């Protein structure tokens, strides 16, 4: 039986990808952010998860406004990062796990979700940057990918509760998979930031700290705000916290925070990285 061993939550700012491409990890501007990955590297070396299920949002690489799914689940044998308009494309391919993808699709549809299914899918910086951060270097990624895209671009967005419930359904699906794969869940994006409009540059440290304080032990506290409340609090791109909320839903066991790093600013963003361990609940 497969096991969800934990969750990795991280910002996915494109500038991080550029910093990686330019080898700036030790640069004083970037170091406080990259250092947040030391505990994650240690944890991944111990856990060695087989599969990463990644909740993220596409920024206009695979999806455009002609067809914009609220939820989309990848079921491809392989995924690639591609040029998103600024010439950077990471080379390493991401091996998929179509059998587990289809199991998740079967199970979440049985739970009355209606995702789009994608047998061919390019993944953008919201997947590529977290993978590069977690497994730096040039070796093939040791962990296979199942991407789950959430619309955070075109309103109406799914509600925080709906995202959390989707995460729970995905968690149940993984737990019911007959294989013995170890699975790590990712939620990418955030925290507070806003790129456009007269409020560009908006950052809300209080709201971010509220999210970081409650993510491990009381994630439902994050459901008290609706999506437009979150846009107002965290900024129009800060609403990417929906990916974190979904990912946290997939951790259904006993959850413990192993590491948390909050660093403002990276580019226009309040950046954060969190590592949660998920252990099976001990029956009473």
């Amino acid at each position: 039986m497969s096991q969800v061993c934990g969750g990795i939550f991280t910002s996915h700012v494109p500038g991080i990808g550029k910093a990686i491409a330019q080898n700036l990890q030790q640069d004083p501007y970037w170091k406080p952010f990259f250092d947040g990955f030391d505990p994650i590297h240690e944890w991944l070396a111990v856990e060695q998860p087989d599969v990463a299920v990644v909740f993220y949002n596409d920024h206009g690489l695979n999806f455009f406004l002609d067809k914009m799914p609220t939820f989309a689940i990848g079921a491809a044998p392989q995924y690639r990062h591609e040029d998103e308009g600024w010439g950077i494309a990471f080379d390493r391919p991401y091996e998929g796990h179509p059998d587990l993808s289809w199991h998740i699709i079967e199970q979440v549809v049985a739970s009355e979700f209606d995702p789009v299914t994608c047998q061919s899918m390019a993944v953008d910086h919201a997947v590529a940057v977290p993978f590069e951060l977690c497994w730096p270097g040039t070796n093939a990624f040791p962990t296979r990918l199942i991407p789950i895209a959430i619309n955070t671009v075109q309103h109406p967005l799914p509600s925080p509760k709906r995202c959390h419930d989707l995460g729970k359904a995905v968690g149940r699906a993984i737990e019911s998979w007959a294989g013995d794969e170890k699975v790590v869940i990712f939620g990418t994006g955030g925290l507070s930031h806003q790129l456009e409009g007269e409020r560009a540059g908006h950052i809300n440290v209080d709201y971010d700290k509220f999210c970081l304080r409650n993510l491990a032990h009381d994630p439902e506290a994050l459901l008290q705000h609706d999506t437009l409340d979150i846009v107002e609090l965290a900024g129009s791109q800060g609403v990417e916290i929906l990916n974190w909320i979904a990912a946290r839903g997939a951790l259904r066991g006993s959850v413990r925070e192993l590491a948390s790093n909050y660093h403002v600013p990276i580019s226009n963003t309040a950046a954060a990285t969190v590592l949660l361990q998920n252990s099976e609940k001990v029956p009473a």
Partner: protein
Amino acid sequence: MTSLSRQTAEGKRAIPGTLVFDGDAAQHGYAINAMCYSFNSAENREAFEADEEAYMDRFALTPAQRQSVRDRDVLGMLAAGGNVYYLAKLAGIFGLNVQDLGALQTGVSIDEFKANLLSHAVTETRVASNGRMAA
């Protein structure tokens, strides 16, 4: 959090300094966003740079969208339905990063915009003492 809520004349939720990219904006902005989406391809970026007007013709931009592109007017592009995730690809062609965009939209210098971001500067790190207990 209803205490925060304000409404526009159309009865939509109003968020200060923020355009919510909804169905109305997505319809209104379709052409400029479609053009920007095409910039994922280096070949298309070069075609735009070679002849901006002809490239805008190809995507049938509205007059307001065209003028905002000619003027490098980011707030104008947003008002004409542009979405920042797509506009970021156009900004890249113009050599503008997100700090440049922020400064242009808020009417301050790049240095002031960066200083505003730094005014929130904080680093907080927690690591569990037995972080490797998973072993």
